């Protein structure tokens, strides 16, 4: 009895270990995306299950499992407020799978577990599709496949030695890897051909877009500096021609008109404003942007984009103040092309309504600032001189560019300009615009990104959230809207060389934006180049790309419905063909050992010993050994092995059979005659 129990431990131990290993990978991935108690719950149950197996403990009774299940469901309900939606339902699945471990003992249980775990593992891709996650998922899938293999082998195994037992792990994972490799061509074909339909196939619950970062539609002191702490990538840009200088790279996002205390907002759409006129000069700069999802409508463009239907991304529109909006919030990574002019004249005329909006201020605030503006007006300074005066103030007084500005008091602009003098771009932009408006110069804030980092591997620009920026535009007679970046007056380095160079208190900045660690940076650049390829060619493989590729392949336009139909029909045909092969014996005339033996016969035939058709393997081996006495022992060994593989009772474990097959292969390959 003890012996039997011991053997059984050996048997399901393989499967248990594979299952727990693969699920550990999966739950590690989920640790970044689900509440922490979910992976913790898995750890507890996994250890419990392992100990049950190892020490032959008894399985928990129904009286324990039932309350546990209820508690798990309740915990998910309490944490996520629902059992539905992406996060909650995946969490529920994860918790239930962890608990199911406690009642996984028969072959059938294991198969159910493995299939559930496959599902749980690929679900991680609903949360994140980064390349390393994909690789980890592949690893977990290999482990699960190995588990499936060990489950189907174990029922036939009998007592085995520790050495063999260990060896089985290797054989199982090898076989699993082989199976996955064999599946790769099918995966690739399906990836290329499976019809991409515009938009998601099924609605992913709304909560999947929480936690996306990006510019918002309003600005308050503090929210851009908050964004600057994130090294997340905002977008990547490939230029058709040379990349313009860093101080030219203003990526235009939301334009803010409306001031309300500390808060700046976009102009309301109630009264439509006329389109600002645009005169461009010089040659256009063409580029392609791969925008990360940020759950907002803006499509960032280089200042200033040319507005024509041919250069704008599909379903996008341009607001009067030259910001480009897509119809739907950007929830998947998109690629679009842009064409911009670095030299331009925007808004030659300013309508009365525009002027009112561009001068709007909340009354009775920031008296000191208003006083300064009034003083400038009384000095009869021209608007240009006023701009100069403001910039001079920033430049010459002790203004400091910092990510960690002190909190501003009740009159924020006054407090900043005359008291703290420490701020980030949004402080400078907003106080500058405030000052201009107070002095009667029409002005507005433009938010977006400034600069970017050139990746030499692939020659494209990476723009991160930490490159988020805010600047100002003032309207001057005859010159239109002119970009003025007050931050550059305080900290020219920010604009010339990027944020890493501008900040002294760099500890606050994300590691990768800092100037030191060139090795790390180099590695990171390589990695990002791989990532960029992954985004473009794998994740970015959308309907348009698919159709273009197919057009290239078959030289004909084709609709996605047709692709689907062709795919379904060819799959059915393939399945019918395979079942035909399986049902008739045609596909499998020779078994593997037979095939290898044929090679052996060929080798001997070359040496002049041909097997007669009625000769048995052993008698032929003996005859051949007599003719070729130098190889006698090898020939006899091969013959004996082959004969026993053909005629002896096969060991009940497939693994042993595979091992003898490998041995036969090796012997035949090593035979030299």
């Amino acid at each position: 009895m003890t012996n039997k129990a011991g053997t059984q431990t050996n048997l399901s131990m393989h499967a248990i270990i594979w299952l727990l290993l693969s699920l550990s990978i999966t739950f590690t991935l989920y640790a970044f995306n689900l509440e922490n108690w979910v992976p913790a719950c898995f750890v507890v149950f996994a250890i419990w299950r392992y100990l049950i197996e190892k020490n032959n403990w008894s399985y928990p009774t129904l009286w324990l499992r039932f309350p546990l299940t209820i508690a798990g469901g309740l915990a998910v309900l309490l944490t996520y407020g629902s059992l539905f939606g992406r996060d909650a339902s995946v969490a529920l699945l994860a918790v239930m799978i962890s608990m199911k471990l406690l009642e996984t003992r028969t072959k059938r249980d294991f198969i159910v577990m493995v299939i559930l775990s496959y599902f749980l593992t690929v679900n991680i891709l609903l949360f994140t599709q980064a390349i390393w996650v994909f690789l980890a998922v592949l690893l977990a899938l290999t482990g699960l496949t190995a588990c499936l293999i060990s489950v189907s082998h174990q029922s036939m195994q009998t007592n085995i030695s520790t050495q063999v037992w260990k060896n089985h792990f290797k054989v199982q994972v090898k076989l699993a890897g082989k199976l996955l490799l064999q599946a790769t061509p099918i995966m690739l074909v399906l990836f290329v051909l499976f019809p991409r339909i515009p938009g998601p196939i099924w609605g992913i619950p709304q909560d999947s877009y929480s936690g996306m970062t990006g510019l918002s539609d309003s600005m308050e002191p503090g929210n851009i500096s908050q964004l600057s702490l994130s090294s997340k990538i905002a977008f990547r840009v490939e230029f058709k021609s040379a990349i313009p200088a860093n101080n030219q790279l203003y990526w235009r996002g939301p334009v803010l008109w409306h001031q309300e205390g500390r808060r700046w907002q976009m102009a309301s759409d109630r009264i439509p404003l006329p389109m600002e006129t645009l005169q461009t000069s010089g040659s256009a700069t063409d580029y392609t942007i791969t925008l990360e999802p940020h759950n907002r409508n803006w499509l960032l463009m280089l200042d200033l984009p040319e507005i024509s239907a041919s250069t704008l991304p599909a379903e996008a529109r341009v607001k009067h103040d030259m910001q480009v909006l897509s119809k739907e919030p950007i929830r998947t990574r998109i690629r679009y092309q842009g064409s911009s002019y670095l030299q331009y004249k925007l808004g030659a005329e300013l309508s009365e309504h525009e002027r009112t909006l561009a001068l709007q201020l909340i009354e009775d605030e920031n008296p000191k600032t208003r006083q300064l503006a009034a003083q400038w007006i009384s000095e009869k300074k021209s608007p240009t001189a006023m701009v100069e005066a403001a910039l001079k103030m920033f430049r010459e007084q002790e203004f400091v560019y910092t990510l960690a500005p002190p909190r501003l008091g009740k009159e924020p602009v006054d407090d900043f300009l005359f008291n703290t003098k420490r701020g980030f771009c949004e402080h400078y932009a907003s106080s500058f615009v405030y000052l201009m408006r107070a002095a009667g110069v029409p002005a507005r804030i433009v938010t977006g990104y400034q600069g970017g980092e050139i990746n030499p591997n692939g020659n494209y620009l990476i723009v991160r959230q930490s490159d988020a920026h805010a600047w100002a535009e003032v309207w001057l007679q005859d010159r239109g809207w002119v970009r003025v970046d007050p931050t550059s007056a305080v900290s020219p380095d920010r604009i010339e060389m990027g944020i890493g160079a501008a900040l002294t208190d760099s500890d606050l900045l994300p590691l990768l934006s800092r100037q030191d660690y060139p090795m790390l940076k180099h590695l990171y650049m390589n990695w990002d180049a791989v990532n960029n390829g992954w985004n473009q060619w794998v994740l970015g493989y959308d309907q348009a790309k698919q159709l273009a590729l197919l057009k290239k392949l078959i030289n004909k336009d084709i609709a996605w419905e047709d692709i689907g139909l062709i795919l379904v029909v060819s799959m059915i045909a393939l399945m019918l063909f395979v079942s035909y092969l399986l049902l008739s014996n045609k596909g499998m005339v020779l078994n593997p050992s037979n095939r290898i033996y044929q090679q052996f016969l060929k080798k001997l035939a070359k040496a002049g010993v041909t097997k007669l058709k009625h000769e048995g393997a052993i008698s032929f081996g003996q005859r051949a050994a007599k003719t070729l006495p130098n190889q006698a022992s090898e020939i006899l060994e091969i013959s004996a092995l082959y004969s026993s593989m053909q005629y002896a009772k096969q060991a009940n474990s497939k693994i042993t059979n595979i091992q003898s097959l490998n041995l036969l292969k090796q012997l035949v390959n090593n035979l030299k005659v």
Partner: protein
Amino acid sequence: MKKITDAIIAKTSEVILGKQQQIKLALACILAKGHLLIEDLPGMGKTTLAHTLAQVLGLQFQRVQFTSDLLPADVLGVSVYDRNTANFKFHPGPIFTNVLLADEINRATPKTQSALLEVMEEAQVTIDAVTYTLPQPFFVIATQNPSSQIGTFALPESQLDRFLMRITINYPDAASERQLLQSNGGREQLAKLSPVIDATQLQALQSACHDIHVSDALLDYLQAILKYTRQSAQFNAGLSPRAGLSLKQCAQAWAMLDGRDHVIPEDIQSILPSVAGHRLVSNITLTGSVDNIAQLLKSVAV
């Protein structure tokens, strides 16, 4: 297992000189629970072989010399009226034994022959509506002179089929013959021979024989042989399913004698002449000759 069978063969060889192959075949036949027919000229040692085997296997041995006036009752036994009890009392014949040597079976009349063959098939005797079971193990070793000899009743094919194997002994080689001539003949040694195993052990060997593995690949080969005998113009009639089964059982026994736990095609090839030889009748010569079997083996691919 191999040790035991090797010991049996060695012991038997002490008496039957230079006939290892025949001894092995005979032993295989016994292990496969079949009856053995030894066919050869008088004086070749048929009787000695049968007697020695019985002795070595530790079995009860009876011998009946078949003659043309032998009656079934002489073999099976007879009920005699007992005056004291006023009842018929059954006197068992020589067949109630483990090994029955039916010497020169083809000298008896068909009536007696068929009586014997029926018992061989059923392993029981029914006389006056009473059934008597024979001791186990039970098997018959029959010897027969080649049918061309005068005064014989050749066994019909249907009855030959009851014998699992037919073997011939043939003349001994010179060395063995010299050894034989130097001694006083086998019979003397036979008396001194001690058994290697007993009946129970023999039965254990017989059941172990069943467990020798026969793979699908081997059955493919076996069926190919059966198919060939049925389709080829070489033979009058093909091998019966029973013959197929016999082939399998003998091959299993042969594999066991070789110390293997599975049957290989060579086993079939070794026993085929003895198992199929008396069952196949050639179209050309109207005899089941060994040459025909060799031809058959060459024609079927392994």
